[in-house]
């Protein structure tokens, strides 16, 4: 099985009339889910933007403490992962199982790299006393309560995003594990595509997080 193309398709579940209907339902369902997720995040973005409009000074003070370079690197990492994910989808369509698996693993490792960098950034935040919610640790910008709201918002947004990414990586690994079976693409090719939507979405969220939190008022 050296990279030879395998047949690609969908096994139609009992309650669907045909593969098209099933694919349509799966993709549409994922879009709706992502729409609710987007609403979830936009509430938090709104808080950040309101704070920015009302207390520009506070935002500047916080932005100076955020690790711009880690954020930027992470943006690049995620964009790369979206590329490898797209490649995986493309290869799955062609039935190149090996290549697809490789791309999926590459995507997962980029995701993990992101999480590792993010973890390091959190640790730096902790060291720099940028954790106002830890009562036992004095907070550097304690004079200004608007900064606190923004920092907290930062932690909630990035934490929630990290949670999504962690889920994404786990699901991706699980999917790769199942997809290692040769018959996978014949029956469940659409799962790769649907998952791809989710992955791009996580990427997209980060691409909004980065300017809203790191770039503005720097």
């Amino acid at each position, binding site marked *: 099985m050296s990279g030879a193309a395998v047949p690609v398709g969908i096994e139609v579940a009992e309650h669907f009339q045909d593969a098209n209907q099933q694919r349509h339902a799966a993709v549409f*369902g994922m879009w*709706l889910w992502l729409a609710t997720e987007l609403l979830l995040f936009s509430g938090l973005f709104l808080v950040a933007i309101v704070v920015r409009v009302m207390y520009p000074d506070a935002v500047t003070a916080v932005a100076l403490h955020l690790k711009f370079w880690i954020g930027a690197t992470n943006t690049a990492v995620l964009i790369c992962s979206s590329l490898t994910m797209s490649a995986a989808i493309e290869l799955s369509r062609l039935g190149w199982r090996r290549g697809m698996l490789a791309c999926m693993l590459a995507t997962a490792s980029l995701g993990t790299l992101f999480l590792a960098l993010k973890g390091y950034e959190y640790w730096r935040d902790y060291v720099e006393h940028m954790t106002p919610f830890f009562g036992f640790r004095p907070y550097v910008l304690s004079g200004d309560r608007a900064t606190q709201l923004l920092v907290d918002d930062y932690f909630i947004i990035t934490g929630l995003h990290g949670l999504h990414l962690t889920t994404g990586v786990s699901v991706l690994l699980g999917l790769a594990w199942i997809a290692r079976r040769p018959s996978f693409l014949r029956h469940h090719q659409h799962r790769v595509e649907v998952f791809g939507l989710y992955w791009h979405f996580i990427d997209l969220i980060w691409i909004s997080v980065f300017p809203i939190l790191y770039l503005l008022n720097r």
Partner: protein
Amino acid sequence: MSPSDTALRDPLTPRPTLGRPDDYLHSEHTLRSWLLTHDHKRIGILYLLSITFFFIIGAIAAGLVRLSLIVPNGMIFSNDTYNRLFSIHGIVMVWFFLIPSIPNTFGNFLLPIMIGAKEVAFPRLNLLSWYIFMVASLFTLADVVIGGVDTGWTFYAPFSTTFSSAWVVPALIGVIVVGFSSILTGLNFVVTVHTMRAPGMTWFRMPIFVWTMYATSLIFLLATPVLTITMLLLLMERGFHIGVFNPAIGGDPVLFQHMFWFYSHPAVYIMVLPGMGVISEVVPAFAQRRLFGYRFVAYASIALATVTFLVWGHHMFVNGMSEYASIAFSIMSFVVAVPSAVKVYNWTATMYKGAIKLRTPMIFAMGYVGLFVVGGITGLYLATLGVDEHVHDTYFVVAHFHYIMVGGTSIAFLAGLHYWWPKFTGRMYPEPWGVVAALFIFIGFNATFFPQFILGYLGMPRRYHEYPPEFQILNVLSSVGATILGAGYLFPMIYLVWSLRFGDPAPANPWDAKGLEWTIASPPPEHNFARVPQVDFEPYDYSEREQRT
């Protein structure tokens, strides 16, 4: 069979079934086959059992609230106990009974059948949604009963984040999690309606019930994430002293109200739209007449689901919000009444020149319209700024929402339950008892909640454990009404269970009604349709009435 047959025969002789043994109820019998089922009908039944349980819990709390209010000096329960009781009542009734009631039971059972599908689009997700619901609701229930939450169902900050009991944290988690169950159900319904309709089932051939389910699902999808975020922020403030709402640590005290009502006002339409859907099925069936103004009613559902996002501020007229904002929210609330008015008038017109059979579902449906109208009009009173300044947070509001939620939606639920009971179970309920229950509920309901309008206008604030003595007589009246109402609810619980074994077997279409669900056996076979139906008829296609005098 006529009611008299039922009365004559021995009530305790089990009746045999008509349905073939391979229907969805009898295909498998193990507990496992229920708990791991992917069948939307079985999941609907699971929800039916769960929400009945939660209704009973909420009703016991309501009973105890009414018990306490018999005396003005609050000597029956302590102040904290009383506060916990109405919080349990509100939280359980809203999140664990009313919001999931019609969508998750009737919706699950009927929506796929009504559009000619074999299943919902994602059966496993559907089961997952039930499990999420059960875990979240039992967790919350344990929390509010054992621990005790004293914030009311609205969780207003900064009270909820500072002074209330610490048990509020698990309750918030429960409410967040149950939101995901709603989202998953809504998602499933929207995808099902979009992709699974049978050939020929165009949008304007769908029954209104499906339209309202669709509109409800849209609200689930759009509004629930806002609640999730709000509750998450509340948790952060409570747990980690992150100042969002509490001014003492840098937050804004009215921000919470904005965020909460941005979800919770649309949520009240989540509660009312499905009821309207049920009534739009029942009235044409028992009038044997096509639903008047079908398209307008369909559009009205979508209009409600849209405009509902623009009126949240009417809960906040007296919190110092700017005058112009208040005026804008007031007029939007008048606008949102228009689609409701359309529906009410159309139901009335549907009865004109019908051939009306006053069976239990129809009696409930007519009761629904009457009570909903009273609740709706008093909602407009509240939207009138000059009036709301006076009656905000009084029993007037309590009466308003009980008229809509209990007099409206819960009664629509009962109407639907009786209407589709033959379809769900393959058995007829005993007709005379249904009529008796409807009368008890109708009388008890008005006796309970009408006095509360007067109390509210007199100025009795809600969530009051002790009240001035001049309010006592009306309160006692209300408590007496609640007892009658409680008895009224008890009847269906008993006779419906009784009918499972002793009721007459139901034919496929006992009401001579239209709609795909009546074309298949009662109870339906496992996969609904042996062959996918071809739809070439309009909804509510009740033919000429002249012959049917």
